[in-house]
């Protein structure tokens, strides 16, 4: 077994151990023991493979599950805090606010569970993604407003319309005379508050110079000017986005300026390419 594969196997054991112990009184040294590493070596490897310290990981997992229980049950806040091993109401509230931006009470009333941001359990797929060298550190770029033209649809969870949107756009692309050159294909996802239930707005598009000559069969969209975090990735999409939202954004102190997720793919039509094509993910941030 290569050293990498060995480390990965050991860390997965530690991740399992942590997952089973979210409501137990454990120390990081117990997780190191589960991985059969010294505490020092464990912390070093954990950071390298997971991009969180073991303690930060444990806290985020506990707070995510606590947030879920606040929504799903009517348990007393202090009982949930004790269950997840917070000794006082105050330490729980402070930690909770740091990751959700709200007090537990407020979260219970007004918070919206959104799986983009809920810190999920890290799996082998995540570790392989993070360590595959296929995700760049984001660049922060100031961008002017952009005009996109394409095909858009409300997409219900599980619907398989994305490919037909791209097929349609490919057919129509011959009639888009004012596209910004060289052509870049954009996928834009807009997440309304209740998207997990009602779906997202998806758009397959190209950037155009003006709205004056937009072909009447196409839909247009204005992307707001502002600061965008730009990630270059190649590889599967879901672990990449979990990393972007739950690790990078969560640790950066930034938040999305708009619930938009933009993918720029160059000229490779996504419905006919593999998922390994290089692309950029843009998240508007403040």
């Amino acid at each position: 077994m290569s050293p990498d594969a060995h480390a990965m196997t050991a860390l997965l054991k530690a991740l399992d151990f942590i997952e089973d112990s979210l409501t137990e009184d454990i120390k990081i040294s117990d997780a190191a023991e589960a991985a059969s590493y010294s505490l020092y070596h464990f912390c070093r490897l954990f950071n390298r493979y997971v991009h969180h310290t073991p303690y930060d990981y444990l806290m985020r997992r506990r707070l995510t599950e606590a947030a879920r229980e606040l929504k799903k049950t009517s348990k007393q806040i202090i009982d949930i805090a004790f269950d997840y091993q917070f000794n006082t109401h105050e330490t729980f509230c402070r930690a909770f606010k740091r990751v959700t931006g709200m007090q537990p009470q407020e979260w219970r009333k007004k918070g919206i569970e959104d799986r983009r941001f809920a810190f999920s359990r890290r799996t082998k797929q995540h570790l392989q993604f993070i360590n595959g060298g296929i995700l760049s550190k984001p660049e922060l770029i100031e961008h002017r407003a952009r005009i996109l033209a394409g095909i858009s649809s409300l997409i219900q969870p599980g619907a398989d319309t994305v490919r037909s949107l791209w097929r349609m756009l490919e057919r129509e692309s011959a009639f888009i005379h004012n596209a910004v050159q060289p052509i870049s294909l954009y996928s834009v996802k807009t997440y309304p508050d209740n998207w997990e239930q009602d779906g997202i707005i998806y758009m397959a598009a190209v950037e155009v110079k003006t709205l004056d000559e937009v072909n009447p069969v196409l839909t247009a969209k204005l992307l707001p000017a502002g600061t965008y975090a730009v990630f270059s990735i190649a590889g599967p999409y879901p672990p990449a986005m979990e990393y972007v939202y739950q690790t990078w954004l969560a640790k950066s102190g930034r938040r999305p300026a708009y619930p938009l997720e933009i993918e720029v793919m160059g000229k490779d039509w996504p419905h006919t390419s593999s998922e390994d094509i290089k692309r950029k993910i843009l998240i508007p941030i403040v």
Partner: protein
Amino acid sequence: MTFNKPKIVYLGRIVLAGFSFFGDPFATSAEWTEENEIGRLCHRFMEYVEENEASAKNLFRSHISYEVWTWNEEAAAKGNFDIFVGMEVDTVEAVPYDLSVRILPPCEYAVFTLTGEEITTDWYKPMYEEWLPQSGYAEAYPYQFQYYDQRFKGMDQVAESELDVYVPVIKK
């Protein structure tokens, strides 16, 4: 089915802001009810307008809504239609990131007024296959829109409703 003769009107550029749906609108319900994807789309749009009441007031010219159906090859091949539901705005620049824009070019339209139960019949076929070929006009663009003003009372009150259908045309 016979229609009253359509009026021919010229309309300038129309800028709409709203939501799109692409796919088979009847995948969830085959009935002419508000339960199908078109109904859901309209419902989502109306909900958006209500939730953003203050900004919507400034953005939209009126409460008249447009339902734009666009003809494409995916429709013929798979029954996937492109439907846009929105209301008119003055300037594109004011449209927020979470709405889509549709710009209809200046052109002449044949306007058919549908009354009562006519609304739920297959009016598309007689318009395009019977009226259009003998009208002296051709289809100018591959879309048509339905214009919902105060005369339309809702799918549950079709009998008391009226609806205008606009077909973009050009003299042959």
